[in-house]
């Protein structure tokens, strides 16, 4: 399958008391992007916009030559979004959740879903409300892989996880990339370790603005932290 670039052009979103953007950037296929920024920097808002959960006040999104419209079901079948907060139906079992997802996504691969659920050790007969946060994230990733998502957006997936669960999460994301090499992953986090472990590209957001893009690097945690502090100083000076 040939995947295309996702381009954001002058994306802006205005809420009362908060403004995101204008943000312009491109996400290349097969890469892992880290979205770094303090609380309130606009990471979730940006992910909400690319996943069509929030309508931008202005600007546009493009998948290759195709403009992505609000409510674009075609685009929605190409990404998976896993958020920090409760996401799937807590009353449904894992098996039933996967069955529901299989009916909603046109490109669902049931054999793959079964294989991944076993590989990721998902308790199929447990209700979602009984799962740990880490297992819920795994469920989201299984669903993403089973419907052959080209983009996976993960909003603060490691917040609240202990170090072991975080390591397990990194392994799951690596597994996801091994299973589906063309997939683009965007992970928002304010934990440097996460991005050191996963991201090849880092986008730093501050006060709703994209202040730095580090591409193709392999930055260590301390280097990332220094870069992050540097953007804080620059942001204060420019203010």
């Amino acid at each position, binding site marked *: 399958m040939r995947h295309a670039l996702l381009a954001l052009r002058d994306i802006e979103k205005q809420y009362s008391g908060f403004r995101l953007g204008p943000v312009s950037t491109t996400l290349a296929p097969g890469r892992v992007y880290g979205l770094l920024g303090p609380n309130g920097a606009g990471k979730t808002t940006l992910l*909400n916009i690319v*996943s*069509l*959960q*929030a*309508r931008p006040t202005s600007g546009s999104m493009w998948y290759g030559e195709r403009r992505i419209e609000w*409510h674009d*079901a*075609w685009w*929605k*079948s190409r*990404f*998976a*979004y896993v*958020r920090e*907060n*409760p*996401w*799937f*139906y*807590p*009353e*449904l079992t894992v098996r*039933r959740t996967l069955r*529901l*997802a299989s*009916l*909603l*996504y*046109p490109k669902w691969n049931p054999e793959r879903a079964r294989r991944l659920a076993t590989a990721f050790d998902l308790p199929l007969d447990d209700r979602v409300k009984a799962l740990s946060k880490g297992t819920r994230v795994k469920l989201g990733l299984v669903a993403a892989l089973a419907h052959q998502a080209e983009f996976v957006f993960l909003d603060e997936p490691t917040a609240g996880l202990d170090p072991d669960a975080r390591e397990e999460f990194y392994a799951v994301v690596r597994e996801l990339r091994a299973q589906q090499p063309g997939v683009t992953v965007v992970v928002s986090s304010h934990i440097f370790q996460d991005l050191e472990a996963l991201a090849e590209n880092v986008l730093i957001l501050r006060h709703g603005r994209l202040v730095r893009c580090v591409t193709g690097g392999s930055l260590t945690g301390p280097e990332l932290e220094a870069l992050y502090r540097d953007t804080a100083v620059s942001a204060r000076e420019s203010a």
Partner: protein
Amino acid sequence: MNASVKRLAALLAKDAAIHGRDILLTMGALVGLSAALWWFGRQPFDVLMSVIFTFNFLLAGFWGDWLISREKTKGTFAWIRSTPVDDRELVLAKVAAVSICVTVLWTATSVLCGAAYWLAGRAHLWVGLLLILLAFAAVSIASRWRFGQKLGQNLPFLLVGLFMAIVTIAARTGEPMLIDPERLLRTHQGVVLIASLAAATFVGAVTLTLHWVRRSDTVQLLE
């Protein structure tokens, strides 16, 4: 099967899995109560039907609220909205779910007295009352989707209460009413008029909800 119909069926099955037991319990309780009133109440037919209709009416409002409230408070609309489900399918699935429940309950509870109704040649009234129930359920869904918990849950009942209060006060003071619902329900033309108003309310509530949901960010649909 058409992909949209398949998604609609999946959403209905999901609501059945989540709310089915609660809805069946309330349905069973009301059918039992209706049967008891019919067999042991010795009430005049019209009084019995008024009581049964009132219970159906209350449940139509509660079910509309249930179907939306849980999704709003648990944030599950956000997942559904990140899948290829269109907002039209999302709204239609909710309206279809509550309409099925309301129709089944109204049929089950009134069928106990159905023979007398059909014999009396007033089947049109049965349909007219069903349309009122469906309209109220749709208004309840619209209100709960559009507003927060307190206002969303209570607004439909407040509107009905206000309407009933105006009718009652006008009847007691001898004011000539533009519309007298009781008299209207006794004539064929009156029932057709009320049924048409109910159908228009149903369509209006669904259209407004669809418009609201389609233009809203997901965060506006959650609590």
